């Protein structure tokens, strides 16, 4: 039993993408894609490889510009034309291709772009020139990695170029969590993780789900999504083929939508 957009219109969605279209040359990655997520909700986003999930995410984070369509937050149309805009709008993200800097340390990666600075009570010179509080950043990183049950990263103040894929993914997640944003977008956050780290990430997502935060998870593991999501949006060939409430939908129905789904015209 699928639930469509229109039935959920009682409250305004926190993040709403309306009829987004995006082409890369001849490839139409998104065709009038609608997407929404509410406050206090964890929304899954599924679809086959190349369905356009990551593209949608990159548009929401200002990395890619849509050809048409608009994004609104709490009902206000919001221009997200650069990653900085997305940060300002309270959106933070874990990318599928982990965007870490190999030449920086674990804690520098976690805090890059929103460093903890010594202020010395002075505000007459710009933040960018203030000294970094490396100790606090490292301690905070240590704490959040402990929360994620990651104890294999020993030297948080050393370059990360020796870390494994899973360790990096944990750092990327620690990074997103640390931003404390209202909107958290995770593109396959568990794809490189071991069993216990996956469990930790999923339970952490449950913890992160607070009344005023919206979380979006892209994943190919339906079982993971069933564990943490309230609803799932299914994409096929750049279009929204249905939004399902997990309490009312079986895994088979979702798989059917992913493989043979058709666009539900809801407007």
């Amino acid at each position, binding site marked *: 039993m699928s639930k469509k957009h229109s039935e959920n219109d009682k409250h305004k969605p926190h993040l709403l993408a309306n009829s987004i279209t995006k082409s890369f040359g001849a490839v139409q990655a998104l065709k009038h894609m609608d997407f929404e997520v509410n406050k206090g909700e964890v929304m899954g986003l599924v679809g086959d490889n190349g369905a356009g999930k990551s593209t949608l995410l990159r548009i929401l984070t200002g990395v890619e510009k849509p050809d048409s369509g608009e994004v609104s937050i709490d009902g206000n149309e919001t221009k997200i034309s650069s990653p900085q805009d997305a940060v300002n709008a309270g959106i933070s993200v874990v990318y599928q291709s982990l965007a870490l*800097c190999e030449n920086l340390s674990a804690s520098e990666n976690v805090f890059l772009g*929103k460093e903890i600075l010594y202020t010395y009570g002075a505000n007459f010179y710009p933040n960018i020139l203030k000294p970094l509080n490396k100790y606090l950043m490292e301690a905070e990183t240590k704490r959040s990695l402990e929360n994620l049950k990651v104890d294999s990263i020993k030297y948080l103040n050393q370059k990360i170029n020796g870390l494994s894929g899973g360790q990096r993914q944990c750092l990327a997640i620690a990074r997103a969590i640390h931003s404390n944003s209202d909107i958290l977008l995770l593109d396959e956050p568990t794809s490189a993780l071991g069993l216990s780290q996956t469990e930790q990430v999923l339970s952490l997502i449950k913890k992160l789900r607070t009344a005023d935060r919206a979380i979006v998870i892209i994943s190919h593991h339906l079982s993971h999504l069933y564990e943490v999501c309230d609803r799932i949006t299914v994409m096929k060939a750049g279009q929204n083929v249905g939004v399902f409430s997990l309490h009312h939908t079986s895994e088979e129905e979702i798989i059917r939508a992913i493989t043979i789904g058709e666009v539900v015209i809801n407007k």
Partner: protein
Amino acid sequence: MINAIDKTLASLIKRNISGYLPVLMALIVIWVYFGISEPAFLSSRNLYYLLMQSSVVGILAIGITLILLLGEIDLSIAAVAGVAASILGVLSTNYDFSPLTSCLVALIAGGVLSCLMGLVTSLFGVPSFIATLAGLMGFQGLMMKILGSNGTINVRDPFIRGITTSTLSDNHAIILSIFIILIYGFLLYFDHNKRIKYGLNINPLKLILSKFSFFSLSILSVAIALNSYRGVPFLVVIIFFLTVFIAWFTKSTAFGLYIYAIGGNAKSARHVGIPVIFVTICTFTITGLIAAIAGIIGVSRYASVSYNTFVGGPLLLETIGAAVIGGTSLFGGHGSVWHALLGALVIGSLGNGLDLTGASAADKLIVSGSILLVAVSIDSFARRFKK
């Protein structure tokens, strides 16, 4: 158990000095070689001249390291130094500007010219190699224009000359060395304490102590050696503090972190909201200021400005060579200004030693070229190895 502790200690030591090791080894090999083949090489008199000779390259190497860290290159850096030097020479000699005002104007000019390079590189997306190549040519022309028809300006101003001719008194040199050592010791202690306070893993005491003793011994022995000739040159003190400041700036401020982040992964730097264009332009500007300082030092040292001292000779290549020999990567994101300074000493020692042993200019070029090639190969190899 003991074995395990030794292993972590060894890996810690490796991590802590691995950046310094190649360049220090090169320096030691060169010093031992020339020390044996030409005993005058290790005299305190020669140490004095070695430091003086390496000063301009050393300062420029600090400047270009910032650009290399960004993953860019600045071929115009020596020409910027040349323009700044020419401005200083003309203003202080032909136009009777006070030396301080002339220096200030030279600094501003250096900053503005390199800022222009940064603008073209980051705003218009012109590869820095091309943009600064154009800059190199343009600034060479500019330098010729400023210097006028006879091409050389002699600068006899006592203040400007004094920058590189004055030395500290023996006592002041020792007091300053001890002061610096105490500060360094305090910083190590402060760091250790903070790490304990925040519950972070700490370096073993052995490592901290050996760092401290190595640093203290180096500083003191240089000061004592220089005292036995003319004394510690004021210039050495200037370069030391300039390097301390730039090293602190790159390693300990948000701006410095952004330089490394952009050089390491420009795309993700942009994704996390780092103002890449702004940081690039500012870094170029800072490098321009540093280049201008090198220009001022050059004028003071040679008591003149001429086209050849800055752009006709090997200054640009020696600068890039010093940074790369110091282990700064041409691919961005790896390196430090201290290493660049050591790299400049390697280049300086080679030139100085080959001069002493009576090598020809041709030999010097061939040896320097080979060393540079080895350094760049190590850089490329290390990069491929890491992937």
